[in-house]
Structure formats: structure tokens, C-alpha cells
């Protein structure tokens, strides 16, 4: 008799737990619908991922030792530096190489 009572109690507890889980699932269902909206992968990625890797052969890059003496210590941004290099080494660039 005691065993039966214990089994009934356990069964009731399991049922209650299952009902609680079911209730929580129902409660979360409409709230989770906010995740239905998404942005296209390419647009949602950061700015860095949008920058395409430049295909540059490192062997063609000049070393700092080859730079002219009047080279400024600082540039405003990378594009300025790139333009400066193109101006200086435009004659040395291999054929078919285009500035971006």
C-alpha cells in the first residue's frame, strides 16, 4: 500500500513537472516570434567583412627601406598611403596592375 502511494506521488509530481514545462513552452511561443524577423546576411555583417581582400603579391610591395626620404611619418588613412605609394612607384608596378 505504501509503495503504491509513493508511486502515485511520484507520478503526480512528474505530471506536474510536465505541465509546467508545457505551460512555459506555450508562454514563450508568441514572445519568441520576435526572432522571426531577420536581416540578409551580407547586410548584417560588419563593415570589416564588406571590405574585400586586396589581391596583392607581397613580393611586389616596396620595403620601407626603399621609400624616399621625404616620405611623411603619418598618413590620414590607408587610402592616402596607398595613393602615395602608387605615385612613387607607378613606374615600378607590373603591367596590368590597376589601382582600386
Amino acid at each position, binding site marked *: 500500500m505504501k509503495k503504491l502511494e509513493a508511486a502515485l506521488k511520484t507520478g*503526480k509530481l512528474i*505530471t*506536474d513537472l510536465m*505541465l*509546467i514545462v*508545457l*505551460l512555459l513552452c*506555450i*508562454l*514563450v*511561443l*508568441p*514572445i519568441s*516570434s*520576435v*526572432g*522571426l*524577423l*531577420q*536581416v*540578409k546576411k551580407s*547586410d*548584417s555583417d560588419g563593415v570589416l567583412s564588406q571590405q574585400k581582400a586586396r589581391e596583392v603579391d607581397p613580393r611586389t610591395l616596396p620595403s620601407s627601406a626603399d621609400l624616399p626620404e621625404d616620405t611623411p611619418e603619418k598618413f590620414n588613412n590607408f587610402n592616402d598611403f596607398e595613393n602615395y605609394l602608387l605615385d612613387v612607384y607607378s613606374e615600378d608596378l607590373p603591367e596590368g596592375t590597376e589601382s582600386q
Partner: protein
Amino acid sequence: MFSRILIKLIDQAIVPAIFLLTVKIVATVGISRYLGIVFTVGPTGFVFDSTADYVRISSYSTFAMVAALAIGLFYILLKSMAFHETHISPKMTAKLFSLRLSTFIQGSFDLYSQGAIWMSYSYLLMFVTGIMSIFGMIYSWVFYSSLILTALSTVFFVLDVENEMKMKDPNIESETEEEIVLSFEEN
């Protein structure tokens, strides 16, 4: 007893869940069409081309959910404050019966289980909109509207529960009510 309450809560939670889900989907499609924003429907949901469009539609559709929640909460609070079985006025009872709207009169068990479910949705939506607002996924005013709705409905719900407790507890005396005893005697 515990199972009975849980079954009642599950029973009461299904309709609001479907209602809110429908509102979200219909609002997303409707507002996108109205604003002329293009989206595609993929296996994971609605996909928008730009982040700005996503934030716009997400905000407006979530606000539609808050509005739907407000309607539901208003209905429950109206029932619990005006048509509650324990403190409905005799005049109102007669009026409702004459209008064949006696189903509006409900007991505490039904009203509080419905109220608990709607309040749970309100709190959950408030937390989710808060997190989304922090990460810039929706406009912050959507979160504030959800916060105001939750705060107001909680206050009114607590007031009704207090009113109910006063009626059930005989130790709490009401200050305004005057007791009149009629005695019938034979001459």
C-alpha cells in the same frame, strides 16, 4: 489541486498565444506592405534586405503585439474590476442578465488564471523588448510603451486582488460600509 491550477493555466494560455502570434505575423506582413518594404520568406522567417528596414518593421510589429496585449489586459481587468462575481453590484448584475451577457460575470479562479497568463505575457514581452532595445534591434519607445503597460496593469491587478482579499477576510473591517439590521416583529 496543483494539477488543476496548471491545467487551467494551460487552457487559458493557448488562445492568447495564438492571438499574439497572429498579430505579430499579420503586423509584419501588413506594415511591410504599407511601407513598401520588400522582404522574403525563408525557412527561418522574414528576411529583410537592410538593417534599417528590419529595425523599423520589428519595432512596429512588436508595438502591435503590445497593443494587442493591452486590449487583452484591458478586457481581463474590466472583467475583474467591474464584473467580478464577488463584488459586482446588484444593479449591474440585473443589467447583464437582461442583456443576456451573464457570461461576463466570472469567479476569482477563472479571472485570476486569465489575469496571470496575460500578465506573464506582458512581463515576458517587456523583458524581450528591453533586451532588444539595448542591442538596438527595436526603437526604445517600444520598450517604454511595454513597460508602462506592464506597470499599469500590475497596479490595477493588485488593487483588484486587494479588494478581493478584503472581502474574503472577515478580520479586515471596511470603514465606509454601514451595517443596517432589519428586525421583523409581530405586533
